[in-house]
């Protein structure tokens, strides 16, 4: 299986702090991969490093067989990588519609179609189309952040904790939408909601203290009590 994205012994610093020590994993084309780990393990930092928001100080990040480790963020994004950041990254002063417009790379028919699909998925966004993003509720912001990533045609989607702050009913919807997305796009997910993660992901990697410590198929993990307990605290 050819891998779409491959991290090889990646190290990264934030300012003077050494955060990522040795991150190595592959994301196969098609399907979904989830990163698991405790708070502060380095999951978010890993995604940010892939996006070029942190410098890779050692190791390599290979995407479609090219090293993207030292590219500018916008170049990386333009290679077809979409990103839903942890803090949602909503432009508070812009309306929901404007937030979407900033994200839209082109305005053609497919985009319009996607737009329709998105608004069906998150009717709240339609309802609050002209409301400043900063005034949305926490969950609505989360929806907007996901919607922004959905609107473009991407080859890879990096999604950081999509379920955070969402009502169960919306979590179901988002889960379903990611499952749909999987058909055209590869997904790399960070998620604490284990139920959701196991519904979506095919394989997992566990990060602990800035290192990838365990990998495998999601199917197997559900039954692997030892790993679950050791790294995820689930018993």
């Amino acid at each position, binding site marked *: 299986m050819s891998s779409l994205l491959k991290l090889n012994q990646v190290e990264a610093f934030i300012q*003077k*702090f*050494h955060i990522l*020590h040795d991150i190595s994993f592959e994301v196969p084309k098609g399907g979904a991969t989830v990163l698991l780990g405790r708070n502060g393990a380095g999951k978010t930092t890993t995604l940010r490093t892939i996006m070029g928001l942190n410098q890779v100080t050692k190791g390599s990040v290979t995407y479609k067989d090219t090293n993207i480790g030292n590219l500018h963020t916008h170049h990386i994004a333009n290679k077809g990588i979409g990103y839903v950041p942890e803090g949602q990254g909503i432009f508070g002063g812009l309306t929901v519609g404007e937030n979407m417009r900033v994200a839209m790379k082109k305005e053609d028919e497919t985009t319009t179609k996607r737009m329709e699909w998105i608004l069906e998925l998150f009717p709240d966004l339609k309802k609050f189309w002209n409301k400043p993003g900063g005034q949305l509720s926490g969950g609505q912001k989360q929806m907007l952040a996901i919607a922004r990533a959905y609107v473009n045609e991407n080859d890879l989607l990096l999604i950081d904790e999509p379920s955070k702050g969402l009502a169960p009913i919306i979590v179901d919807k988002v889960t379903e939408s990611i499952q749909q997305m999987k058909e055209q796009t590869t997904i790399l997910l960070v998620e604490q909601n284990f139920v959701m993660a196991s519904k979506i992901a095919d394989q997992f990697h566990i990060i602990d*203290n800035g290192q990838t410590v365990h990998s495998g198929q999601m199917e197997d993990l559900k039954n692997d009590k030892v790993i679950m307990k050791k790294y995820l605290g689930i018993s």
Partner: protein
Amino acid sequence: MNLRNVDKITWIYVAISLLLFIVPFIVTGRSMQFIIIQIFIFGIFAMSYDILLGFTGIISFGHVMFFGIGSYSTAIVMDRLEPSIGSLLVAIVIAVTLAAIVSFIVGVLTLRLKSHFYAMLTLALAGLFLVAAEKWRSVSGGNDGFTFGVPEFLRDSQNLYFVGLTAMVLIFFGLRRLTSSPFGKVLMAIRENENRIESLGYKVLHYKVIASIVSGVVASLSGVLYMLSLRFVDTSVFATDITIDVLLMTIIGGVGTLIGPIVGAGLVEFAHHWLSGLSDVHWIFERWIILYGTVYILVVIFFPLGIVGTIQSKLSTIGLKNNGPRAKK
């Protein structure tokens, strides 16, 4: 940080202050003493600005109004009464009272206006003071200004030096205490996140107003000293240029450090003195102001947090590393 540690720093400051008391016996040139006195004066003024900018996060473009209030109170009292220590005290009382009243009002306005809007409003208020000084010519002497005498004792440059230094040292230790008190910690929190502090049970407005008053009063004292050193007043004591100067001193030294503004004042005064002196050396330095401007640019590039701020943060990261917050198991 522990007590012993803090004491060490305090001792260093005390030692430096004592050293400064010896300086006039070594540097006897009045002209150089005059420059150093200006550093004391602007050091005080810049510290007062730091209370606003560095500790409370308020940018004001009109801080000079308090300096001007201090200046005119002194000048007018000295001119109208006889130049004695008694009238100096009267002048200080008037200066402090006026500054407190004005800074109270200005401080209350921080409630309504945020960041740039507040900055511009203060610019406007200081501008109105300038216009008032210009217009009320019978009292202020207007743009031409007037000269006046000062108490005999302060006519001596050395004495003035000691008075300026003492004032600066006292104010420095006072403000340092203030900023490291529980009150000061709340100010810093306001700078960081004004909205959050309310839901911790603190009244933002009270703190801002108190900070504004402290800052205004201290600034007016620097105005008083300025007059003692200059013995001449004109409307330029309300000019925006002075706000800009003091802003620069504060930033160059490092905001939120208190000692930084003094260092900044020293650096600005000496850089100014030295660079402008270059023009006597060679005609090529006729445009020394270009070099002076370049100094500012270089400071930002090499000392992004100001001189003291940058050094402090270098030291503290070393400290943090030793503490090993993220010990790898």
